[in-house]
Structures are given as C-alpha cells and as structure tokens.
C-alpha cells in the first residue's frame, strides 16, 4: 500500500496497522493522513509544549479545549486563544486571513462564550519586495471584512516587516470572549445515546485536506494548492454565533466543537475521544454543497462556518427551530454510543472504522534531532566601537520612526471596526488595548506582541523577552496578568538548528511564564514556514490578558502634562542587538540581546502595578521596539507636549536611547506625586530624565524635534 501519498510515514502506518490489527483502508488512511499531519497532531511539538506552565489561581480552563479560560471574578470568565493561518494567507491572502479570523471566533464560541474582541499578528515581507504590497493589502482586507461583518471589533495587534516573510507572510488571529463560568460548554461532555448534529453552512469541496497542506513547506507551485483554501462567509458566521448562543442560553447543547482543520472528522473524533464515547456517523445525511462528494471528501472538507453539536434526542426539535430562525442548515448526522469505535457509514455501508482515541492521539511523536548551530555564538559578536554614534540625531530618530515595523499602522487598523459592541476603552494604536465589561467596574487589558529578531539572535532570551514584554506593558497599564495564549510560528522542524531554536524559544517563554506567574492557557503551533528562498525567523507571538480592577486604576500612555517629571525606570544598559535602530540602519542581525532576568521582571511588574493603582504617575509606557527614544517620541506626539531631557549616565547615548530589552518603562509624574513615585521605585534603577512641556522634544547632546513634526509622523495626521 502506498501510504506516502496520503502524507503518512512508514512508522505511522505501522502504528495504525498495529492498533487496528489490519491494514487501514483508503478512506481511513486519508483521514489519518490529515489528522496525523503536523497541523492537527502536534507530533513534533507535543512533548515540547509540556515545558509551559498551564496552571494558576486564575486559570479555569487550560490547554486542551477549544480555548483557555481565565477567571475575571464574580462568576465571569474570559475565553481566549490565538491561532495561525499562515499557509492559506500566503497563497490566497484575502480568504486565508478572513477564514483565519472566522476560525478563531468559532473556537471561542465553542465554549459558549460571546466573542467580544479580536487582535491580529501580521508579519509581512520587505515593503520593497514585489509581493508584499499585494499580500499585505489582501490580508488586512481579509481580516477587516470578516471581523467587521461579524461584528467583533479588532482592537489591537502587532505588525512587523522583515524580508524573511517575503514569500511566507504570517497571519495570527486572536479572539477573546466572555462566558459565565457556570455556563461553559465543553467538548468533553458527550454521553452515549446522544445525537451528533451538524449546524451551519453546507459541506463542499473547499479546503479539503487544508491541514495537510499547512504541514509542509510552501512549494513553488503553491497556487496549485488553491483548492486547499477555504472560503469565508462572515454573514453565515454571524448567524452561527447568534444561533449557538441562543442554543446555549436555552440549555439545548450537551457539547460543542468548532469545525476547523480537518472538518467533520477532527471535530467529531475529538468530542468522542475527549468524552470517552464511540460515534456512528452517516455521511449521506450531511447537507452538501457539491453533488457526488466521496465520503473521504466529506470527512475532510474544511468548509467554513460549521459547528458540531451534541444534543439530547428530546431537544432536537427545539434545536431545529432555533436553526431555522437563524436560517442555518441543521442535520442529525450520527449518534454517540458506548465504547471507543468511531465509524463512518455512507448509504448504509461502513466506509471507515477507527478507535476514536487513535485518530487524535495515536500518531507517534517525532523527536527531531536538535542541534545548536555551529556558528551560533558568532552571531553574538558585535563590534560596538565599529558603530559610529549618529552624526545627525534628528535624522536617526526620524529614520527609526519611519521604519515600517515601527511606523504608525493607521492604514491597517482604520480598516477594522474597533468599536462595535461598545466596550472599547482603548483601541488599536496604543501599547495596550482595553475593554470594559458592561455592568462591572473592572476592565480587561490585552497585549499582543512578538520580537522575531531577538528570537533569531537568542531563541531562549527572545522567547522570554516576548512573554515578559507583554506582561510589562500590562503591568504599566495597571493590569494583573491572568494568562496568555501563543502562536508558535517556526520553519521546518526537520532542520536540526531550527528544531533547536524552537525548543529554546519554548523553554525561554516557559521561564518567563514561571517567573511572572502568567500561565499558558491556549495556543497553536505553525511549522514549515519556509520556502525555497528561506526560512522565517523564529516568531513566537504572545497574546496576554490582564485585569484592571477599575477604570481609575488604568494608567494610560501618552498623557504628559506641562511640568510633569519624566523618569526612566530600569537598567541603563540595554542592547542594540536586533533593535529597531540597527534594522533602520540596514545593518545585519548581530549581537547579544539583554539576558533575561526573571527576578528583575517580577520586581518591575509588582512596582509598575502599584504605580498605576496608587496613581503615582500620570502616564506610563513600557519600553519596547525603538527603546527609550521611540517611547519619548510616541509619548510626546500623543501628549502634544515636548520635554527637555538630560541623560545623566556615562553609557553611550545611542545605546541608552535606542537599546532594547529588559524591564524598563518611561513615566511622567506630576510634581506632587514625585515622592510617592520614588518610594515605590526605591531599590530599583530609577533615573530622572527631565520635565515635560514646551513644543520641542529635546535630549541634550542628541535630538531636538518639534512636537508637531512628531505628531505628523506618529499620529499620521
């Protein structure tokens, strides 16, 4: 039997044969080929993900369900998850991105949560590259058109540009929803004797085996993969959301699972395996969009906007009537039973019969050889003395701010409805996005971030920095971090250096999660992000969710007032390695980023939260890309106020101003609060920089720029 054409490896075929006691038939092989693909099975990473801490006092639901849930207090939970849709977006940017948004929204919905906000992580190639314009425009429009129509606001995100994404852009979609903790719907609660129901759009030939397509490198003739791309219909999704929430309100659902990768097979076998029941499915009862579909095509179709429900037989009439109201197809396609057997029938004939647990968990894990690249440490060689201090500081700062990764993203986020649902307190274009919860005091704060350049230079440190940076930003805003979700975007694991970088990144992220008590509650892995022209940088994307007790505890950024004292808290020895400044100069990626210190991060975050909640500052901004210089410029532009700064430290000014990394923040403090501020930060590096005021932002011995100029650049007005 030629199993390789179904994407099955020799040892996997052997494992299947051993479990079944016979050779799998063709339909079964096709199912296993997709379900055991990297995208669905996590066979290369399952064991690595065990490094992540997944428990914490606020974790209601950790990894393993459709999304994670954290406790917001008073019986309310926030369900959230991020997911990649990279391969589809590389081939069909508009549809790939749109269906990425649709998929993550359904993941949240599957828990019975109402989706309340989205964010997106966008990684595009060099703006000068001929494909970048087309890919970025299509992806942004895809995210916008879908989210806008569904009525879920896109309230923030991260956009970065680097030539490594020229042929392989990344689209990571994040969604958060709210659910009463006693109303959570699970995919693990099916019991024998219940009905398996397919709700939503008809099943067609679109996106067949898309998960398998996402589990190999993008080939030259990736256009041939177009049939693997799903087509999105946000209108159908909106109906699906309202129908599912109504079904939940009426207590008509026993269990629910979204249909994403690998369609009916994946969703139904997961429910069966997790719930510990068997399942009999009748594919001739599936409403079809295309005539004459083969059973395996029905099994693996990734037609969008479908949900799998488990329903008590007595409730079926009521379920059908809700579906009719929302004009959705609704079909009973099978039933649960005792045991572990997952069988598919087609016009009475049994076409597949597999143990449910084998489908999801039976794939043998792969421990790829990992090896630190021989030249790894030479990447850390960086001759600072060979780098001249800027001759023209103003130009240096303006070039940095004009760098596409740094520049304002109005052209992107103004295409997104960021306000629908009336909860957006702080929308896109700010360090944190903030949502209110209607009828409550507390606010939800969210950050999505990534730093592929630091991960490229130091996978462990970069992974830790990525997590730490989201927590710092939340802490400065006054939010306690409750948990995070991640998208691990990496190239092929089959290259030992790349597999090593993947493991190091995960270990680094895990170390920061531990140190900051911020567990991982959900996430996804996307491997094989490489093409003939090269591999992407290691790109873990982290979305962290925090809670601010009341609106008075939220500390904004960019709110300087005349006379405020400006402080830099944190060490004065950042690193230029992988910084936005070095990239804006067009210099190669070299040098060693700052070494991660869990203790310093924890110390910083505690003080930052206290600063916000004791109202010891008027405005605060954690330092991220572009370092202190970018933070000063952004804050000045947002505030419409200048400042006179003197850096009383012996370190090279370009390093202090443009260096990155470490637990650092810029604060503006009203005169009357200075003593309190200093008390809070006593014992932590804290440097008085100068005063806010005037129309010019000047740093002694460095740049001096009119605020109106900065506003033009930063606010895009």
């Amino acid at each position: 039997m030629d199993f390789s054409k179904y994407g099955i490896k020799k040892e996997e075929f052997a494992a299947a044969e051993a479990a079944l006691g016979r050779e799998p038939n063709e339909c079964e092989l096709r199912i296993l080929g997709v379900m055991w693909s990297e995208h669905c099975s996590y066979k290369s990473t399952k064991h690595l993900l065990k490094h992540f801490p997944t428990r914490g006092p606020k974790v209601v639901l950790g990894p393993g369900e459709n999304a994670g849930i954290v406790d917001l207090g008073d019986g309310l939970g926030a369900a959230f998850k991020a997911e990649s849709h990279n391969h589809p977006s590389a081939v069909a940017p508009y549809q790939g991105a749109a269906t990425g948004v649709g998929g993550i929204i359904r993941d949240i919905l599957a828990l019975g949560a109402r989706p309340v906000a989205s964010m997106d992580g966008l990684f595009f190639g060099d703006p000068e590259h001929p494909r970048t314009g087309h890919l970025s425009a299509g992806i942004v429009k895809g995210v916008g058109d879908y989210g806008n129509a569904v009525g879920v606001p896109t309230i923030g995100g991260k956009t970065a540009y680097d030539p490594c994404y020229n042929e392989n852009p990344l689209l990571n979609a994040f969604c958060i929803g709210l659910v009463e903790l006693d109303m959570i719907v699970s995919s693990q609660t099916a019991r024998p004797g219940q009905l398996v129901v397919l709700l939503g759009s008809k099943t067609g030939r679109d996106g067949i085996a898309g998960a398998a397509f996402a589990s190999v490198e993008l080939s030259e003739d990736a256009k041939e993969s177009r049939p693997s791309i799903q087509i999105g219909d946000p209108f159908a999704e909106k109906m699906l959301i309202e129908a599912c929430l109504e079904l939940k309100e009426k207590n008509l659902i026993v269990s629910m699972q979204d249909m994403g990768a690998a369609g009916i097979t994946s969703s139904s076998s997961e429910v069966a395996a997790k719930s510990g029941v068997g399942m009999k499915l009748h594919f001739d009862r599936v409403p079809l969009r295309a005539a004459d579909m083969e059973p395996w095509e029905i099994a693996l179709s990734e037609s969008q906007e479908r949900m799998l429900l488990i329903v008590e037989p007595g409730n079926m009439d009521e379920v059908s009537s809700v579906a009719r109201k929302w004009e959705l197809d609704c079909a009973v396609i099978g039933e649960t039973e005792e045991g572990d057997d997952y069988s598919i029938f087609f016009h009475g004939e049994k076409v597949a019969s597999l143990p449910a647990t084998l489908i999801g968990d039976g794939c043998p894990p792969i421990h790829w050889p990992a090896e630190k690249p021989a030249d790894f440490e030479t990447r850390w060689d960086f001759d600072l003395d060979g780098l001249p201090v800027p001759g023209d500081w103003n130009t240096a700062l303006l070039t940095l701010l004009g760098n596409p990764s740094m520049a304002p993203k109005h052209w992107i986020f103004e295409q997104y409805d960021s306000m629908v649902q009336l909860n957006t307190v702080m929308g896109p274009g700010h360090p944190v996005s903030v949502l209110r919860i209607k009828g409550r005091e507390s606010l939800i704060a969210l950050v999505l971030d990534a730093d592929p350049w630091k991960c490229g230079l130091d996978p462990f440190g970069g992974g830790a920095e990525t997590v730490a940076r989201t927590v710092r930003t939340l802490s400065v805003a006054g939010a306690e971090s409750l948990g995070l979700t991640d998208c691990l975007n990496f190239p092929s694991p089959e290259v030992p250096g790349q597999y090593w970088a993947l493991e190091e990144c995960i270990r680094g992220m895990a170390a920061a999660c531990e140190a900051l008590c911020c567990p991982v509650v959900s996430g996804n892995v996307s491997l094989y992000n490489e093409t003939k022209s090269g591999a992407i940088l290691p790109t873990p994307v982290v979305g962290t969710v925090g809670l601010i007790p009341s609106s008075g505890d939220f500390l904004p950024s960019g709110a300087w007032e005349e006379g405020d004292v400006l402080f830099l808290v944190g060490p004065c020895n950042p690193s230029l390695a992988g910084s936005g400044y070095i990239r804006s100069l067009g210099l190669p990626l070299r040098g060693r980023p700052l070494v991660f210190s869990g203790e310093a991060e924890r110390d910083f975050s505690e003080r930052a939260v206290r600063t916000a909640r004791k109202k010891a500052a008027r405005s605060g901004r954690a330092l991220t890309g572009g370092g202190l210089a970018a933070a000063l410029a952004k804050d000045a532009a947002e505030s419409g106020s200048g400042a006179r700064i003197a850096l009383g430290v012996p370190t090279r000014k370009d390093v202090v101003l443009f260096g990155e990394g470490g637990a650092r923040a810029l604060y503006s403090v009203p005169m009357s609060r200075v003593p309190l501020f200093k008390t809070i930060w006593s014992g932590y590096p804290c440097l008085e920089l100068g005063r806010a005021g005037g129309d010019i932002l000047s740093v002694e011995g460095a740049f001096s720029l009119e605020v109106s100029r900065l506003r033009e650049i930063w606010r895009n007005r």
Partner: protein
Amino acid sequence: MKTAVVIFPGSNCDRDVIHSVRDTLGCEVESVWHREERLPEETDLVILPGGFSYGDYLRSGAMAARSPVMGAVKEHAGRGGLLLGICNGFQILTESRLLPGVLLPNKTLSFICRPCFLSVENTETPFTGLFRKGQVVQFPIAHGDGLFFLPADELDDLENRGGAVFRYVSPRGDSGDEWNPNGSVNNIAGIVNPRGNILGLMPHPERAGEAILGGEDGRLFWRSVASFLEKGGRRHGLQ
C-alpha cells in the same frame, strides 16, 4: 418614549443601539425581527441599526430594503412616525427610497473606522432639537460604503430645504476635504426627509454615548428625540 430596533440577519449594531438608548434615557426598547410584519403597538421611534444586513452581498442595504418588516416600517413613517437609519440603516433607507441619494464606496475604496467631527446644521428636526446650530460633535464612523451622492439638481433641492443635518468638519467646525473621510458630496454625513420624520446618517451616535468609550455627544441625540416626543410630537405630530 417607545423605541423599536429592527434586527435584520447580519445587523451587528442592534445591541449597541439598544444599550445606548436604554443607558441614556432609561426607557423601553424593543427589538423586532426582520420577518415580523408588524411593529409593537404605540412605537414612537423605529431604528434601523448598523451592520451588514443579509451580508450586504448584493449592494449595501439592498436586500434589507425588501425584507418583510419594511412594509410596517414604511407604514409607520408614512403616518409621520419617527424613523432613524444609522450606517447600514441609512443605506437601507436610501435603498428603500425613503431618503434620497445613494451611498457609494468610500473614496479610499476601503473600510474606515475612526472618530469624526460633525457640525449639526439643522436643529429643527426631532433628532437634533437639543443641539446648538453649528455645534461640533464627535461621532465615530465605521463603514465601507459611506460616500453620500446625489445628482446636482437634487442636491440643490436637499440643501435648499435644509435637508443636510450633519456635515463632516474639522474639530473647529471648518470644512475641508481632509475632514471628509469618505468623499460625500458637500461633506454630508446625515440627511432628513422633507417631512422631517426620517433621518439617516453614516456616523454612529450610539458609539458616542459614554465618557469611558471616548465621548458623550451621542446622548444629546437620544435626548433630543425624547424631548421632541415629550413636547407632544407623537407619531402624528409632524406635518
């Protein structure tokens, strides 16, 4: 004051507008599903909310204009009842020919969501009575097809009768292309019919109803309607 918000499949600002009216006025708001053929008894104000009715797949608002509930909506407006269309609701009103003109794709050819400044040009309508003439308010926009267009002669008619109720302006009330986000003729953001009981606008007053969300100018919009009705302007109150 009794308000009915029509929900079409694909409406997505229905909950927002219900929230905003209730939050501002503390009054009763009912929702009406698109398949209904009657409005609740004694309805004073009907609102067609924003969103993407029926997916807006044919043309924004085109399908909704022909939906079952629109018969009752037209009847209500025909009796002089108050009818408000916001964003997609405005598109539905022009598609129904309850208001003149058409809403074309934005001049940028992309969706735009951002706060906008509007000047209130006509305070003689039931929806704007509590604003000052020329007052600059901030309501956000969020639309792809918001370029209001009318042929020149019809535009003159509209302007001559004071039909342009809201215009896009600068924060200081100046007009200019840079303050007109979508390319609407004469910077028009919202219009009223000659009788004065049907108003359509692209910006969202319901998104400007609370300080925590960035502004409260929208509350005056709902209060104006309530004040108009309190002063006796009922369903049949307009000529």
